């Protein structure tokens, strides 16, 4: 399906918002892996929900990244966006970076999050299992951390990028911008908020934690930690899947998410 493309003005910032599907609203918070654009996973979710897919500030055509100094700015940005969309409490699905935003949102503004799905989310830190190097890795190194199936078309494309100067310019530009935005919230402390783990006790939304068994960037122990710290949370593991279930296993990801949200 083709989603509707909207631009939402928010206190001087512009948000690129894709909206598609029918049913109650759902907020999808994307990762750095390409799910900022409408993919098969969104199609599947859109069969039962009106999926709202905003691009974070600094991603795609969304502006305002200059004012982002940390995760709180992202969280407040989404509180503002929900307000502008007149959405009081919504189910939130967040992958990787988007999962971190979702977890913070659910802990700080529990009344805005009806249900929460965290997919291979960053945001926590475990000394014994450090999160892999996102910023300093080459595309082939990243592909090995992120994908279980190295034959996946995106993994194949990343393996071909051994020489950065040969990467198509628009693709490289989008990646550089996305990484800059991620660095603004996650350079140091590295992709986590040291106080989030404690705050997770504040989450009131029923929560599903979804994790790819072979996630080499954010290992499964992080999924277990989220499950242990969020009251009543459940963990489901997707087999033969890396860091990005919405991209590597869209059907499985969507089926589990819809089951949970419809329960």
């Amino acid at each position, binding site marked *: 399906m083709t989603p509707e493309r909207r631009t939402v003005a928010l206190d001087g910032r512009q948000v690129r918002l894709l909206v598609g599907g029918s049913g109650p609203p759902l907020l999808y918070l994307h990762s750095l892996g390409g799910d900022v654009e409408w993919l098969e996973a969104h199609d599947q979710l859109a069969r039962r929900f009106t999926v709202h897919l905003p691009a974070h500030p600094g991603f795609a055509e969304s502006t305002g990244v200059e004012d982002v100094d940390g995760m709180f700015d992202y969280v407040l940005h989404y509180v503002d966006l929900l307000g502008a969309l007149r959405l009081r409490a919504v189910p939130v699905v967040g992958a990787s970076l988007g999962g971190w935003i979702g977890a913070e949102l659910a802990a700080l503004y529990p009344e805005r999050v009806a249900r929460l799905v965290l997919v291979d989310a960053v945001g926590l830190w475990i000394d014994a299992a450090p999160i892999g190097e996102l910023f300093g890795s080459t595309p082939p190194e990243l592909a090995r951390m992120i994908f279980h199936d190295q034959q996946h078309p995106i993994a194949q494309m990343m393996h071909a990028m051994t020489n950065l100067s040969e990467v198509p310019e628009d693709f490289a530009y989008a990646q550089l*911008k996305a990484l800059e935005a991620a660095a603004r919230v996650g350079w140091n402390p590295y992709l986590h908020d040291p106080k989030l783990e404690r705050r997770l006790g504040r989450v009131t939304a029923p929560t599903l934690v979804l994790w790819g068994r072979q996630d080499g960037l954010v290992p499964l122990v992080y999924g277990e930690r989220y499950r242990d710290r969020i009251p009543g949370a459940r963990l489901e593991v997707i087999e033969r899947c890396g860091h990005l279930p919405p991209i590597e296993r869209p059907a499985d990801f969507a089926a589990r998410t819809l089951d949970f949200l419809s329960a």
Partner: protein
Amino acid sequence: MNDVAYWKNVPVRVWEFAIGGYQVMKKWLSYRELKLLGRALTKDEVRYVSEMARRIAAILARQTARMRIAVVGNALPLYNPPIRVAEEYAMIDVISGGRLIAGMVVGGGPEYYSNGLNPAEARGRFNEALDLILRCWTEPGPFVHNGKHYKLRYVNPWPTPLQKPHPPIWIPGAGSYETMDFVARRRWAYMGIPYFHKRVFKKNFDYFREACAKEGYTAAPEQMGWLVPVYVAESDARAREEYESHLWYFARKLLPGINITPPGYTSARSALKVLGAFGDFMLNVNTWDEIVAGGYAIVGSPATVREQMAEMARWLGVGNVLTLLQLGTLPADLTRRNMELFAAEVMPHLRRELDLPVAPAAAASGA
């Protein structure tokens, strides 16, 4: 300090170095004696004494009447607060009798990994630190600084530079638009970082001249500097024979990693431009012919080096030529001979040929 606690290898000249009646190292330490301080020196303080010794040694080594001292490696964002840089530079300027050229750099990409500093803040911190340093040099303290990155209720730096309003400022860069636009706007001097093909220098200096034109003035040649590895020997053949293996050691063993560009370190637009130039980077050069043709290094007899350097300096339109006379594994004896030959057989000729003053004039030091 006594028979039990001491610093090794501090030459007597360094220890006895005095400004007026003020014996610098002894004075600093005397304020920090155990009975005054009530504690032993911290690790940082001990390290600071070594740094102080090195700085004094550097000043002594350069104790000449005319030569300028260009310090071009202080990455401002790595200092917190950056007032430290203002004071250290001012100290060198005072001790050297106003001969400092103050280099200000953003720092290399890898430094943002090893210092835990957010590269997305690199430009913001650099700009704010630089403004603060200029304020330290030109405005009597104490004053308040309330910036985005640094909040200081009392800024009261000492000393201030001997050169007024402040020492000339040089900013090196690898061709990012932000840096060139910024230097053009402030009317300072831009130094091209080496190890690129000569066409990269040319492109960058052309962009810089345009940026100056956009600011409403013509760039002075002294606002541009070309930094290049140079090796001089008796003949072309001998120069190559003595130098080549050391150059390849540098290019293949020491250069890799320098091209790390963390996210946000420059704008995505500039990052693409710099990435695009990597094909023209010494890291990707494989043959001696490419080294020569690309002007990555100037190597040969005095006549060859004179001719090539004069031609390049004219073609690039630069008023400062900065030489790297040691590179990689080039040993001390060859380095010394290289320097002697360069000073005796190349430098005087270049000065005449390019009509440069004997003591290289600094770039305009106005704000």
